[in-house]
């Protein structure tokens, strides 16, 4: 009997110590026993200790062959599933979340303004503007704005194009650069947690 299993990257178990296959993977099989496979218990959180644990595809194979000896499993997903166990469902209030969001917003707003100004003084942009002006007109004395205004417009356009949106209006359908970074970061965190979880299991 051919069974196709697609393990997920991560499963968050809140207040439940028994983990079944249906929690951590999607299952397809040609027979009618998908229900039976789904309800196989794959993992129990030891001592109810909060933390991260890993279940490998091999564990799934072992558990399924215990129930159905003639099963032939094919993995179409992840090799290891990260299980994060929490004793109870933690809910942060919406107001607190907004406070956090505004906090991050202000950090980024003030920080980026400082970053761009420190770049300007670091790279001596005003001097470079003087140089440009004398390149065209022979003297460095220029009214403020000839270069600064188009430069600022260019900077605004550049930032908007780079981040691919202004406010909520998106320019194209691509994800924005930091959204891409966010996905990469989350993947790295899962990888690292899996690493340390399997290290801990080996030490035991």
């Amino acid at each position: 009997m051919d069974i196709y299993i697609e393990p997920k990257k991560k499963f968050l178990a809140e207040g439940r110590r028994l983990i079944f296959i249906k929690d951590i993977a999607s299952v397809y099989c040609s027979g009618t026993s998908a229900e039976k496979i789904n309800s196989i218990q794959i993992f129990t959180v030891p001592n109810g200790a909060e933390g991260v644990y890993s279940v490998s595809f091999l564990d799934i194979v072992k558990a399924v062959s215990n129930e159905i000896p003639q099963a032939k499993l094919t993995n179409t997903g992840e090799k290891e599933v990260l299980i994060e166990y929490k004793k109870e469902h933690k809910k942060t209030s919406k107001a607190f979340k907004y406070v956090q969001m505004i906090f991050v917003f202000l950090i980024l707003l003030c920080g980026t303004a400082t970053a761009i100004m420190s770049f300007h003084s670091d790279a001596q942009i005003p001097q470079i503007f003087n140089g440009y002006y004398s390149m065209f007109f022979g003297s460095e004395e220029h009214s403020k704005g000839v270069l600064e205004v188009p430069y600022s417009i260019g900077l605004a356009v550049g930032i908007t194009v780079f981040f691919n949106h202004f406010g909520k209006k998106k320019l194209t359908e691509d994800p924005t650069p930091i959204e891409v970074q966010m996905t990469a970061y989350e993947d790295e965190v899962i990888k690292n947690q899996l690493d340390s979880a399997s290290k801990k299991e080996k030490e035991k």
Partner: protein
Amino acid sequence: MNIIKHLFLILTAFSSGMIIAAGICAFIAVIGVVPRMAAKTQTPDKIKFYETAIILGGILGTLNLIFKFQISNGFLAVPAMFFVGIFIGCVAVSIAEVLDVIPIFMRRSKIKRGISAFVAAIAIGKAAGSVIYFILPHFYKL
């Protein structure tokens, strides 16, 4: 002739702005400060909101080249500088982290434990350095 020269000047300045903007934003995006903040506050779905902050911050910082902003309430400087400090702190540590200084030193010295102590040491060291820089004479001149 003068108009053509001015047009070229404007074009040069505009292009400089676009390229520099992309450079600075790529720096902030790649260094990974924002994903960390979003993960810490559990708001990874609000990335666009944070990017708007970066866009506005970049524009504000540049407008400072043209207008000298005057904010009448001087006390606003306290929270503003607090936020700037957090941002610079995150970026400074991110640079060290991206360059893999800490992992390489830990591997070379074969120390396996005590990352938390090292991180605390870095934080205290940076804060002490900042205080010394601003308070002792000879370091900081306006």
